[in-house]
């Protein structure tokens, strides 16, 4: 009886892992904040105004990185989902779900900032062209992924179903990426070295590169923090289930 209860306590390994991730999140947060300050300075002050769009083009320095890093987030969900379906290991599922959550937030930012940028430049908040529509579809797919997890009757069943959605839904990512190269629409073409895109000069390219580094670091920080939170939630849920307290997911 006593041994059984001792097993209900969070193991030192779980607590140690959570503490280690906590230190990792702290270090990542400091690094992200430092690079983000530099990126914001470059995007809002240092980079010159664009010849045709003036100052409003500066939205580009975060709109493009959040869109690219959302692809990365969904790629991690795809890989994590595949690994989970093959191995059944909860750590893969946690990584995939955490990445999907951050990816949905970044896709939301991509949609909203794109819409705000489109109004003064294209005189439209929204248009049903291929890039915009497939971005919305991508957002809906991964929102569905999170809803399946949240509302599944059984956690393991929800994780398996969501993993399938995360793997199959990833097919929209390359369609979304290549859409502006294959079809003409409301959305501008590729930005560098192609007709129809912004005219990117050296300082603008450098700013884009630093912003991309900042947003990638932000993604990694949020991902690690979310995985840590999921690990803790799962550990507490297991202990409560063994104690018969229940009511936790």
């Amino acid at each position, binding site marked *: 009886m*006593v041994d059984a209860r001792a097993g209900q306590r969070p193991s030192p390994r779980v607590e140690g892992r959570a503490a280690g991730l906590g230190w990792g999140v702290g270090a990542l947060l400091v690094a992200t904040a430092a690079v983000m300050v530099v990126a914001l300075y470059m995007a809002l002050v240092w980079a010159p105004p664009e010849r045709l769009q*003036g*100052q409003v083009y500066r*939205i580009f320095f*975060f709109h493009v990185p959040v869109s690219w890093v959302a692809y990365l987030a969904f790629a991690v969900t795809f890989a994590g989902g595949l690994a989970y379906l093959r191995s059944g290991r909860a750590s893969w599922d946690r990584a995939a779900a955490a990445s999907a959550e951050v990816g949905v937030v970044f896709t939301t930012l991509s949609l909203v900032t794109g819409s705000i940028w489109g109004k003064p430049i294209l005189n439209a908040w929204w248009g049903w062209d291929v890039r915009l529509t497939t971005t919305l579809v991508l957002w809906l797919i991964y929102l569905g992924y999170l809803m399946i997890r949240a509302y599944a009757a059984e956690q393991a069943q929800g994780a398996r179903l969501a993993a399938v959605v995360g793997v199959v839904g990833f097919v929209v990512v390359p369609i979304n990426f290549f859409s502006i190269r294959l079809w003409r629409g409301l959305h501008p073409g590729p930005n560098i070295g192609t007709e129809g895109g912004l005219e990117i000069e050296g300082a603008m390219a450098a700013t884009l590169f630093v912003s991309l580094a900042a947003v990638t670091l932000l993604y990694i920080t949020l991902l690690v923090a*979310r995985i840590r939170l999921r690990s803790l939630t799962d550990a*507490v849920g297991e202990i409560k289930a063994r*104690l018969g307290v229940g009511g936790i997911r």
Partner: protein
Amino acid sequence: MKNFWYLFAAYTVIWAVVLGFVLSFYLRERALRREVEALKELLDRQEGHTAPGEGDKVQG
């Protein structure tokens, strides 16, 4: 500055969403820590009630 409000709105949305997301982590972690403390208390009470003296053995 022409179109300044669009630029302002875009950056405001970005930081409001990111900070809101980070705040949600903080609140969820705080709630979780409270739950862990409550569970520890529950375990201590159960151990103390059903098996007096066993806690000392585990500690030792």
